[in-house]
């Protein structure tokens, strides 16, 4: 039991920090521009694919640096050439635009890399078990993921709170007109933030690709979860994104590890459940099967009960 809880917490932390790398960019972009970027997870996917190809020629470590930069540049380009153009048509048009970009990126990935999954491997340097607790071991690569994610968290925190650029970004979040009045180029700030957000998503892709798989559906798998995180944490709130990332990460990891069925759980509490009948499927459901649903139940509940999210200050 200890073993299960210990590893679930560790894996949940790794998964949660990975979610944070995606959700931090998404929530910053939303907070600034009011745009919910549907293509955010697509940049994550691009990061993994670009790193895979670069890795074949240059190795993992140069790819770790170059791929996020390329993805970030592409993100800035999308903002400059596309998003800025539809900005005048309102938020719904922006949402539709980013949805189109997401479709396009997924198709382009299939065009260039094909439909089958790529065998993007953990670098040999990190391919060993870091430590063992009883019968299970913890891979060094997951520890590396955790370190990178924590470093990114610290990086964002320092940039936003301790530097002049961070102050301008924070000010643009709430008072874009005033910042523009003070002589700053707010559209360029937007473009830079969009680019950095995309680069972070790309970096998440680079380090998650070998573990979660590199395939054309990887954006869809994670994309919706990241939305859930951002909404639960409160749109535009970095602290909220951090807490919600860890919450979702740990809840999901724990749920997956539990092989208890609903009927079994009820029977354990003393409620007898008849097998068969119309609800037969429902009683057979295990907690592990419910795991994929949990985030969306949380999402819908949050939006009904507390639309501002955990740490958000405003709706929409």
């Amino acid at each position, binding site marked *: 039991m200890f073993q299960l809880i210990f590893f679930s917490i560790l894996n949940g932390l790794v998964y949660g920090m990975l979610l944070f790398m995606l959700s931090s960019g998404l929530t910053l972009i939303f907070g600034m521009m*009011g745009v*919910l970027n549907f293509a955010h997870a697509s940049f994550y996917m691009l990061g993994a694919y670009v790193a895979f190809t670069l890795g074949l020629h240059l190795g993992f470590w140069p790819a770790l640096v170059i791929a996020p930069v390329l993805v970030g540049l592409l993100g800035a380009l999308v903002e400059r050439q*596309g998003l800025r*153009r*539809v900005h005048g*048509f309102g*938020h*719904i*048009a922006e*949402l*539709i*635009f980013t*949805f*189109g*970009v997401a*479709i*396009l990126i997924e*198709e*382009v990935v*299939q*065009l*260039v*890399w*094909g439909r089958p999954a790529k065998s993007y491997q953990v670098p040999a340097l990190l391919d060993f078990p870091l430590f063992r607790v009883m019968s299970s071991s913890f891979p060094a690569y997951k520890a590396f993921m955790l370190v990178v994610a924590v470093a990114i968290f610290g990086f964002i925190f320092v940039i936003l709170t301790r530097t002049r650029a961070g102050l301008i970004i924070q000010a643009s979040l709430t008072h874009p007109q005033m910042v523009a009045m003070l002589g700053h180029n707010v559209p360029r700030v937007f473009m830079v933030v969009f680019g950095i957000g995309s680069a972070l998503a790309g970096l998440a892709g680079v380090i998650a690709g070998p573990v979660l798989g590199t395939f054309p559906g990887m954006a*869809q798998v994670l994309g*919706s979860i990241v*939305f*859930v995180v951002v*909404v639960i944490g409160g749109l535009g709130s970095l602290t909220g994104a951090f807490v919600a990332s860890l919450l979702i990460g740990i809840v999901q990891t724990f749920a997956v590890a539990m092989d208890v069925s609903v009927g079994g759980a009820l029977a354990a509490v003393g409620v007898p459940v008849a097998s068969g009948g119309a609800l*037969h*499927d*429902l009683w057979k*459901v295990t907690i592990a*099967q*419910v795991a*994929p*649903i949990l985030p*969306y*139940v949380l*999402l*819908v509940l949050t*939006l*009904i009960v507390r*639309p501002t999210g955990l740490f958000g200050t405003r*709706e*929409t």
Partner: protein
Amino acid sequence: MSTATTRPFAGAGVAHAARARRYGLWVAAALVLLMLPQLVHTGTAIAIMNQMGIAVVFALSYNMLLGQGGMLSFGHAVYFGLGGFIAAHVLNLSGRGAIYLPVPVLPLVGGLGGLAFAILFGSFSTRRAGTVFAMISLGVAELMAASSLIFDRFFGGEEGITTNRSKAPLLLGLPFTRDREVYYLIAFWLFVAALAMYAFSRTPVGRMANAVRDNPERAEFVGYSQNRVRFVSFCAAGFFAGIAGGLFAVNYEILTAENMGLTASGAVLLMTYIGGIGSFVGPVIGAVVFTFLQSMLSDYTGMWLLYLGILFLTTVLFVPMGLAGVLMLHAPAWRARRIGRLVGPYLLTGALALVAAVGIIGLLEMIHFVAVSEGAGATKRLFWMAIAPRTLTPWLAFAALVVVGALGVRWTAPRAAVAFAEASRPAVAVRAAPTGKASL
């Protein structure tokens, strides 16, 4: 015809004529629907028309949300799919003789199923508008997608639910074994549903949906609850999506969880937007064009969604009013009888754009060939030619087409725009006719 000048002072006679023309359009649409199967003879064409009919109902129902109500939904296929699943199960029950329900009534069952779930999910999701509504719709879509893996009996797991329309009891002795017979069923329901949706948009609640879309605060001050107005539109949209789902169940006799997934919801957004959300006919055009391109392109390339995605993004970026909106823009020129002057410039620009498109398609297909299909021979058939993508020549040729086409369009497009402005100029220069734009 001098309607361009008389329209601003439209009297009772003109209004009467307009109404007669509108009824005439519906009668003409009904006649076209009846005549179409007589004009085509291949089974494939009938199958595609069936698919189009279903898509048109679905897209029209989607536009009740997006175009008329301003609600962007990423989960509209949920109501389509659930309606379809319920219809399929009812059809199976009917086939076993457990209940009496003939096939022609089945789409109504699907509609009621869609309505029931729209009431359930709409009760909380329509409390919000804009981005939050879109998020909730996405959440509901993911929720249903995940649930479909759990409730095996209802959704049938990976294989889905199959059914057989020929086992159900007959109504008036009409059999539905062949596609052609199903076509008339789809055409009937398409006509009824389209008429009902059009009528809905003219009712006070349909009008209020537009008001809530444009200015919810003001609608509240007038005394309407924006939540309730959105809820009613949402339920109506769910009902008609369910009808489309029921038609799908009758036509294909199989439903899988994919039919209500995010991809299906995305497809209906694409077709509605490409057609144009600003007018009633927009989704019809969009659904027909989308289905046609989809079935044509998928014969030639595995990358059909890429091309449709490019078309979609182009629409979003450059012509947000969609295909129907572009057609509407030409109404003044048509009324002024100067549409003929546009043919020349348009043909020239169109031909050059086609050249560029051929170049882009060629490049994309060659990238795909080189990147993915390794060792599958050295040549690829493209535009009825054998092309060797691993040599330099075809790359240069297609790139040259792109450059020539793009430069040409850049040169001719301003001229076409000038010709358009010239042709749309009102005959008597008082002011622009107010009917020129799409009524978004």
